[in-house]
């Protein structure tokens, strides 16, 4: 009993101290919780988020709207909804974060929806790509992309390029199925045929059987989507090494020629066609500024869709801080966020007031060698695309 009393009073005084400390600093420091994978096979996203977010703050002179920013990074590992919920609960209740950012995996985003809704914490999704996420809470704002958004223009282009038969090969999970559904629906609408829909288990590392199936399908092109990291790398290598391009099966992708792994493919990747919202080779002053800021922070930092998602995500948080004067007011912040329109490193973008999803240009790119390195060269601009997955 005595031991309990001591522990109890020690804990109580610690709590009081912590409470007083946070109260005194709250006015000047904005806390932003960044939730993502920092360990495990997808750990590169954590580093990309960190680089993009901190580079943005540095580029604004170290403060946003005159306030200090404190980042709190938390590791979710892989798709781990229970753990993510605990982490975010702690961030909201204990650390009292003002904003949340990050999220790579759909189940993790789903898990925190009730928390952010109840606590009215604006949460910016830097990467997760399933359309349904923004429906789960009105406090989700997305600065990444969705599969519908980038697939519909790709399907339209494929149809216009006289491709009549296409086979889809996607990873068997949310975004992959979104990609397959989106491509199928748009491509058939344009008059083409999807001859086969191959679904690859998420744990696949050896893609050669699937590549052989693609060859055997008799299609003129393959449309594919896989998660970034090892699956992506493995599939594109298998495509290259099994002679698919030579057999006349064109590659149609979206995120597969991601700058993070692009150099690893070597010259075999030249000519791969993708439709996506960001290329590091995009020529604009905003993009130049972004890349410079990244390299200043870390010369090895990679400019790709994840780091630009974090950069633009911090821009949105910046504007929300401005609009609320640094006070914690989720609803007011949202109102400001929904009206945002700006020139991002990817091109002109805006946040859709209804869906809170980013409306952005989607470009057709081909991999080319420029100055000894492989880049995604933008060859066509499809114009601003909305999230077709939500507007159904």
């Amino acid at each position, binding site marked *: 009993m005595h031991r*309990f009393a001591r*522990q*109890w009073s020690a*804990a*109580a005084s610690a*709590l009081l101290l912590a409470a007083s400390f946070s109260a005194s600093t709250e006015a000047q420091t904005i806390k932003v919780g960044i939730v993502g994978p*920092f*360990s495990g096979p997808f*750990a590169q996203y*954590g580093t990309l988020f960190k680089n993009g977010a901190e580079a943005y703050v540095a580029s604004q002179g170290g403060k946003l709207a005159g306030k200090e920013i404190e980042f709190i*990074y*938390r*590791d979710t590992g*892989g*798709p*781990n*909804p*229970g*753990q993510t*919920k*605990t*982490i975010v*609960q*702690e961030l*909201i*209740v*204990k650390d009292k974060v003002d904003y949340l950012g990050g999220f790579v995996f*759909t*189940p993790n985003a*789903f*898990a925190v*929806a*009730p*928390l952010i809704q*109840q*606590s009215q914490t604006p949460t910016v999704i830097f990467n997760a790509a*399933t359309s349904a996420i923004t429906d*789960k809470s009105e406090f989700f704002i997305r600065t990444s992309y969705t599969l519908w958004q980038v697939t519909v223009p790709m399907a339209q282009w494929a149809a216009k390029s006289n491709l009549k038969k296409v086979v889809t090969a996607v990873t*068997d*999970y*949310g975004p992959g199925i979104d990609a397959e559904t989106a491509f199928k629906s748009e491509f058939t609408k344009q008059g083409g045929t999807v001859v086969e829909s191959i679904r690859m*288990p*998420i744990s696949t590392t050896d893609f050669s059987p699937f590549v052989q199936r693609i060859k055997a399908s008799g299609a003129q092109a393959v449309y594919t989507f896989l998660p970034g990291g090892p699956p992506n790398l493995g599939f594109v290598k298998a495509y290259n090494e099994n002679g698919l391009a030579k057999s006349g099966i064109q590659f149609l992708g979206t995120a597969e020629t991601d700058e993070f792994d692009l150099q690893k493919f070597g010259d075999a990747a030249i000519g791969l066609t993708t439709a996506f919202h960001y290329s590091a080779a995009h020529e604009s002053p905003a993009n130049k500024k972004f890349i410079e800021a990244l390299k200043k922070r870390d010369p090895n930092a990679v400019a790709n869709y994840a780091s630009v998602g974090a950069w633009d995500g911090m821009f949105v948080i910046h504007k929300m801080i401005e609009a609320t004067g640094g006070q914690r007011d989720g609803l007011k912040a949202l109102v400001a966020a929904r009206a945002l329109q700006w020139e991002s490193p990817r091109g002109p973008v805006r946040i859709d007031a209804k869906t809170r999803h980013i409306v952005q240009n989607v470009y057709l790119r081909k991999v080319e060698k420029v100055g000894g390195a492989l880049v995604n060269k933008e060859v066509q601009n499809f114009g601003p695309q909305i999230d077709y997955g939500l507007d159904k």
Partner: protein
Amino acid sequence: MNAVTGSAAARCAPAWRAPLIVLAVGLVAWWVLPDQLGLVTRLAVTALLVLSLDLVVGIAGLATLGHAALFGAGAYAAGTFALRMHPDPLLGLAVGVGAGALLALASGAFLLRYSGFTFLMLTVAVAQIVLSLAQKGRDWTGGDDGLTGFTMAPLLGRFAFDMEGRTAALYAIAVLAAGLYLARRVVDSPFGLAVRGIHENRARMAALGTPVFARLLAMYTVAGALAGAAGALSAQTNAIVGMDSLSFALSAELLVMLILGGAGRLTGALIGALVFTLLHHTAASINPYHWLFIVGAALMVVVLLPPQKAWNWLRARMGATT
């Protein structure tokens, strides 16, 4: 006969003592950590799950790497029940318990014909088969996106599940205490003694006329029931069920937690779950990139320097100075 009852009597502390301590500790934690009730809930759920594993590994002596299947079955069953039938938590808990027990009964009937390494690998196979089926049945389970969309009704009609997790934490602690009481009663009963006997010497127990297979299957089913309860708790307090509930990684982690705390004593399961989860949580907050160093090193140190030896050494040194 005396030797057996002697050791049993020494171990037979009243069954309600440990659960009462758990309740007390849980309440104190609930009181002094109002900001981290999510963690407290997770600790309680994990402790219950590792407790159920102890019944299989520590008491029955069957090392398994497929325990997550029983947990996941309870979680998905409770989640689906809340989503499609009725969002009452206690009904859902019963459904989870039933699902875990049922899967344990069905898989145990096949698995328990084998022992040792073969049994271990077959548990892996069964768990992976359950995982594959769950992934395929994404219309029911939500697949890799997880099972969501359900909101739990207030517990006992009065206590809503709040954002800070106050209700969830107390609920989980209560179920853990109840589960511990049940486990204690089972293990200290003649049935439990028979199972422990089977662990120590299967041939001798068979010679004594004990129906070995039936006893093991019954224990496995009880363990399945508790694991299913933990699964239901997890589904209800998180309002989501992910594929990670069925993963091999989870099964392996549970085994590590149990060995860490000491298998066979029931309280060891609780301690192992507590220590490992807190270690992971703290190390990951300090450095999300390199927390695995700390955990890996800690596990190796624990084996090389068993806590018992370190404790004795410490006491010897303190004895020398006083």
